[in-house]
């Protein structure tokens, strides 16, 4: 059983617990975060179990791609809507991802990982994050950023997306050529996950404190 729990999965479980504890009274998009993290844990454990048993696991991550795209887009939609009502572009982005996902699945089969969809999704999330930061600094309202939950949530997401894009691009466009196998992808993702879940956990704690101080 212990073989199924890697450092990455241990971090995801810890972040899920933090989210469940600190976001238990939340509503809206924040409330969905523990759900996303729980599903992430299930997917990661399943994926690892399949890999250990030498079974293909790409289809699990293909399912997870839909979950990830939905939950992260919902969160961005929620955060951006606090500054502007013009959030239709997130819907269009989602629609574009769905079309790309279907196209990639049909052309390559469900057992092959949809890495083009993932790369496009990461780029979209980077754009949403940059737009959110633009709205944040353009706003008249001052927020103490060191304790402002959305800021840290977006920061974690941006770090993860920026970092993932390089190895994803390699994986998507270069690995098919006669180039040697890129093996450090897993360890890069481990480091990126540490950053992502570290920032997210901190944002959940900030959110809890914020809620407590308002109450």
């Amino acid at each position, binding site marked *: 059983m212990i073989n199924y729990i890697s450092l990455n999965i241990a971090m995801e479980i810890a972040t899920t617990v933090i989210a469940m504890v600190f976001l238990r009274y939340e509503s809206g998009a924040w409330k969905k975060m523990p759900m996303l993290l729980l599903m992430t844990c299930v997917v990661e454990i399943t994926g690892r179990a399949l890999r250990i048993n030498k079974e293909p696991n790409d289809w699990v991550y293909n399912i997870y791609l839909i979950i990830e795209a939905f939950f992260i887009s919902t969160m961005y939609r929620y955060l951006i809507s606090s500054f502007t009502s013009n959030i239709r572009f997130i819907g269009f982005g989602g629609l574009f991802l769905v079309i790309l996902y279907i196209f990639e699945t049909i052309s390559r089969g469900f057992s092959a990982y949809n890495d083009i969809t993932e790369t496009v999704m990461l780029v979209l999330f980077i754009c949403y994050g*940059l737009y959110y*930061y633009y709205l*944040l*600094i353009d706003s008249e309202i*001052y*927020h103490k*950023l060191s304790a402002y939950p959305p*800021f840290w949530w977006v*920061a974690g997401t*941006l*770090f993860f997306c*920026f*970092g993932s*894009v*390089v*190895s994803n691009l*390699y994986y998507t466009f270069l690995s098919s050529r006669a*180039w*040697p*196998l*890129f*093996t*450090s*992808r897993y360890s*890069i993702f481990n480091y990126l996950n540490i950053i992502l879940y570290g920032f997210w956990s901190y944002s959940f704690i900030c959110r809890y404190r914020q809620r407590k101080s308002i109450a």
Partner: protein
Amino acid sequence: MQISSKEINSLITFLTIVFLLAPAFLVAYIFVYNQRKKRHIEEKAQMKLTFETEIAKTQLEVQEQTMQTIGADLHDNIGQLLSLTSLTLNSIELDNEAKARQKINDSIDLTLRSIKEMRLLGHLLQGDQLVALGLPEAIRQEVSWMERSGRYEILYLPGEDLPAAGNPDKDLIIFRIVQEIFNNIIKHAAATQISIALDHFDGHLKLTMTDNGVGFNADSLPGGKAGMGLQNIRKRAAIIGGEAAIISSPGEGSRVTISIPYP
């Protein structure tokens, strides 16, 4: 040239680190920008506080000026009229009916003048409420008060294109500037003719006050209260986003022009 797996790993790791620098710089920049935003908000709040303090101070000064005018008027004008009435009534000799009738008529006349003066004082007692009537009307009241002294020939030209809806805060400050200029004329100018023009164009209110008094060297403002008065005019105009130009030279009177975004 063959690329080894180790080289690819190093390259991708290096590129990932380079890519991570972008969000790191972005987050740092937003922190710095946010601190600037905080300082800007604090400065704005401070400016608002200064403005409100200045408005309250101006209000007090207008009230004080009104009370001084009323005090002086009661002493110099109404007091004198009533004393004269009392003296006239006391000097009536009942056995000389024609003379007594004349003195009674004089007393009635003096009393009526006192009543008229009291009515005018009643208007002034409203003090800062004068501004509520609108800036042109408030200045008109001040002008008629000055004219009553008989020492000044005043030409008042309120423009016809003044906006119907004014700005109460700005009106109060402009009115106080007008009072301040009148005070300077009374105390230092020894003028006989004063002209006041109030115009509005290009979203700006222009107040021009000219006198034919002794004038002064505008380049080197005198110290003490007189200099303070002129500095106050400049400071007050600046508080409401305007500017004051003071042109004067010895023997050639003076001209004060105030231009303020209005309303």
